[in-house]
């Protein structure tokens, strides 16, 4: 192991100060579930690592219109927080109990696909991400956070501070297809939220995980649902659109073909659940 220093800042300011000083030479680690295996195996040999367990970023704060979840909040805390739909189930889909005690909300934003089971739910809830460096902070929509496979809009001196989730309207559903019942890698994950106007769909969110370079919204499927009554025909059309617009990959869990096929199936099941 070549790591020369491991720092555990005691506050956000201290963490941001370290980032300002070392920038991209500093590996930021929250729960360690992603970084530690790579470091142990020598795949990643960071000279300097910053841990966030003591930086005061583990919290769930309810404000007027939204809920702010600190970046270093363990997933177990999300499982137990019942103030928002989708999130407890989505967090529970990740790993086993011990992994959820270690893995964090912010860390899930950096989990390579098919990981990202929490992000897909956050996308359906229109979450935003608060980023900060030593001088300023900014809030970006989660849907605009990712820019490619394991790539995002974060600057080298910036830190993901918290995830902000507006109080959601509408009905939601979340489905994950894996090879096992639990603690299983995702073949495809779908989170959906439908806002109604009378009996018609006013707004639709269909978010996909495991079938693209990062968790993404199926915008064509969403657009097709608006104005429909979410009947069988509308669901079938949206599911076909989602299967068409996703960008799946092959890995030891599932082939590209199977992932695309199942995207259609799981999207239609999730929408049928909302319609029921």
């Amino acid at each position, binding site marked *: 192991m070549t*790591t020369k*220093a*491991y720092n555990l800042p005691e506050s956000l300011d201290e963490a941001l100060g370290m980032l300002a000083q070392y920038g991209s030479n500093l590996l930021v680690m929250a729960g360690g*579930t992603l970084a530690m*295996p790579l470091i142990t195996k020598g795949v990643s040999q960071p000279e300097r690592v910053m841990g966030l367990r003591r930086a005061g970023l583990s919290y769930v704060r309810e404000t007027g219109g939204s809920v702010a979840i600190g970046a270093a909040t363990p997933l*177990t805390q999300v499982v137990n927080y019942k103030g928002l739909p989708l999130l407890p189930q989505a967090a529970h889909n990740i790993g086993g*109990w*011990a*992994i959820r005690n270690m893995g964090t909300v912010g860390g899930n934003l950096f989990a390579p696909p098919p990981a990202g089971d929490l992000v897909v739910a956050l996308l359906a809830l229109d979450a935003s991400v608060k980023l900060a460096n030593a001088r300023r902070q900014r809030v970006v929509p989660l849907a605009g956070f990712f820019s490619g496979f394991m790539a995002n809009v974060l600057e080298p001196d910036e830190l993901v501070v918290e995830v902000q989730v507006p109080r959601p309207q509408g009905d939601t559903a979340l489905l994950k297809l894996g090879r096992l019942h639990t*603690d299983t890698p995702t073949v495809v994950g779908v989170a959906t939220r439908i806002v109604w106007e009378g009996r018609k769909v006013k707004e639709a969110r269909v978010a996909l995980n495991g079938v693209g370079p990062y968790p993404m919204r199926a915008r064509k499927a969403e657009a097709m649902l608006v104005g429909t009554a979410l009947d069988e025909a509308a669901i079938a059309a949206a599911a076909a659109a989602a299967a068409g617009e996703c960008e799946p990959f092959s890995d030891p869990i599932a082939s590209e073909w199977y992932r695309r096929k199942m995207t259609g199936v799981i999207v239609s099941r999730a929408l049928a659940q909302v319609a029921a």
Partner: protein
Amino acid sequence: MASKIVTFVLNGRETEVMVKPLTTMQVVLRDKLGYNATKVGCKEGACGTCTILVDGEPMLSCLLPAEDVEGRQVTTLEGLTPVDGLHPLQQAFFDNYATQCGYCTPGMIMVAKALLDHNPSPTREEIVDALSGNLCRCTGYEPIIRAVEVVAEGQDSRRPAMAERRRDKEIVR
């Protein structure tokens, strides 16, 4: 390399170790302190056999830098085992044939202990859910789930029905 002194409470005893940056608890426990009940499995957080309790919560010692447990309570299987005899969970695992090769057992028991501390009477589903991060390639899990159920039900695990029955069969033959 800037080594640091880390102080924590291990199985009720104040413990101090000198560690290099990012040394995992797995290495500290086994190699530095000689606490070998915590096993080395996948070293990537996938198998659960290195599970320890930090302030009563299951965590994977292969993913946990020792610096992170500064000032916290760490429990390993050694901390559960009484001076004489076995912890009720250990006894139940023994009686219900919940160990074969035994490699997963320390992790299974630590998670089961945390589960029963949180929820003294879990359902079967809750037991399965709690143990789902721990792999066992021998038993098929059923005897492990049964062992946890036996302790949860508060039965006298020293006289398990299953072991008695098997012994009777052998005698009849």
